[in-house]
């Protein structure tokens, strides 16, 4: 007779398969709150150490910097608006230009072969390296900033969108072809909607690239802008202003990305 199964054996927890999901919404929000509060707490604690505080301002100092910068005589909102303007103009131009270029590259192999080596070559060059040339060509006005952001965003978006055009599901193309669709129909009815998600992904990557290039763009001689403000504060070792600028850029990036994500969700409900 087999030995009776013990209660303790029954209660033994079964091993569960490793779970790669994001977890439930509740635990996600709790962990997010812990992460944010914990981050601030850690920041606060380490800036209590004087040696660290010399190069890293405390949360309180950054808060004070925010108050003084955003006061009536402060420059905070002017910096933000001028930087946003640069990002949005550079990004907008890049977006408008990258769509036809990537569709031409995706649709015509000859265009692709002619253009791709240059795109791939330029992609490895940090846009900041172009600054001397851009200043010599355009001077110190707004256009060099737009140009630097444009180059960065354009390259990222072209590569992403054209991959999307190239990788359109060939079965769909075949299906439309069997209906008797012309090349024009294929392009407008199939290729454009099929690569739509890639356009939106490209836009998000392009937006991120625009923001990261902003500091480089604002190195090209300017008084206003978040990048310029960070540069200026560095000379006075005012780390609270530097941190304020960094955090502001981060928040702007986060908000812009969320906006694009929302547009993506709205426009591609079918996905």
């Amino acid at each position, binding site marked *: 007779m087999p030995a009776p199964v013990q209660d303790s054996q029954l209660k033994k927890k079964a091993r569960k398969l490793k779970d790669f999901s994001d977890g439930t919404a509740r635990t996600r929000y709790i962990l997010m709150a812990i992460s944010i509060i914990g981050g601030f707490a850690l920041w606060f604690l380490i800036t209590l150490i004087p040696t660290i505080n010399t190069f890293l301002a405390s949360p309180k100092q950054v808060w004070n910097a925010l108050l003084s910068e955003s006061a009536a005589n402060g420059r905070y909102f002017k910096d933000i608006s001028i930087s946003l303007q640069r990002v949005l103009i550079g990004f907008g131009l890049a977006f408008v230009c990258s769509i036809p270029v990537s569709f031409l590259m995706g649709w015509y192999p000859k265009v692709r072969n002619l253009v791709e080596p240059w795109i791939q070559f330029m992609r490895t060059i940090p846009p900041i390296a172009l600054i001397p040339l851009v200043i010599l060509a355009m001077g110190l006005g707004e256009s060099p900033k737009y140009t630097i952001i444009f180059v960065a965003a354009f390259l990222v978006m072209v590569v992403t969108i054209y991959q999307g055009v190239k990788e359109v599901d060939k079965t769909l193309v075949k299906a439309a*072809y069997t209906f008797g669709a012309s090349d024009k129909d294929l392009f407008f009815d199939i290729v454009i909607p099929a690569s739509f998600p890639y356009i939106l992904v490209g836009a998000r990557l392009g937006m991120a690239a625009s923001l990261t290039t902003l500091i480089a763009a604002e190195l090209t001689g300017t008084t206003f802008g978040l990048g310029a403000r960070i540069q200026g504060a560095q000379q006075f070792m005012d780390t609270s202003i530097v941190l304020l600028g960094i955090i502001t850029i981060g928040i702007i990036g986060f908000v812009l990305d969320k906006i694009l994500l929302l547009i993506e969700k709205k426009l591609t409900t079918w996905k």
Partner: protein
Amino acid sequence: MEVGVPMTEKLITIKDVHKEYKVENGDNVNALNGVTLDIDKNEFVCVVGPSGCGKTTLLNIIAGLETYDSGKVTMHGQPIVGPGPDRGVIFQQYALFPWMTVRKNIEYGLKFIRKPRNVESIDESGNKTVTTVLERYDTKEKHDLANRYIKMVNLTGFENSFPKALSGGMKQRVAIARGYALNSEVLLMDEPFGALDAQTRAQLQEDLLKTWETEKKTIFFITHDVDEAVLLATRVVIMSARPGQIKEIVDIDLPYPRTQATKLDPVFMKHKNYIWETVYKMYLEIPK
């Protein structure tokens, strides 16, 4: 048989078709080597054979999606030179446009179709002449056609769903409805049920049979499932691989309507066993 009254009407004629591929390593693969086959109007032809026997190549050639090296492929006596709405293709991967709803997917192909309409006109001397004009479907006609075929494949209620919300079986029903709505004379089906589970597959087989029995069409159906071929087909074409050739054609003398229960019929078993053995023997002969 009376002279001059053919029992069947030849629709597609494939005569001595050869096709070679060049594969990556430079070798030539003889995909089709002298394939000859006549397909009658409203016939249900199933093609079985080991992979690499060129059955998909043959389908693509009829569809006008691939060219061939030599031979002749005609439909109504006219050479096939490209795809057209007279030949609808149903793919294993469904090929539904994910950004279109079920209804839009079915209506989309109608955009390319012109329907004939007879126009009567009376000239000054009172003579009546009838001319046929080709015109597009208007929105209402498209809508009605889509409704009719959505109903036929039992998808009423899903008109406005996107493909992502449908199961594999439902997606393939949409594809079949699309093929029917285009009123193609021929439906070319490339392993359409290959990705479905056994129960869904059985149901779709019955549905397809019912559809075909009520609204006759010529169907050219590729499968690797011998049961499926015998259940559906009026004729089963067995192809052999390397080179791709037609090895044998088996007439399936089972009456329609057929259902899954037909599979218990001794005639069904006989054909099934025979075709299965033939295909399996060829499979074993392929060097692996």
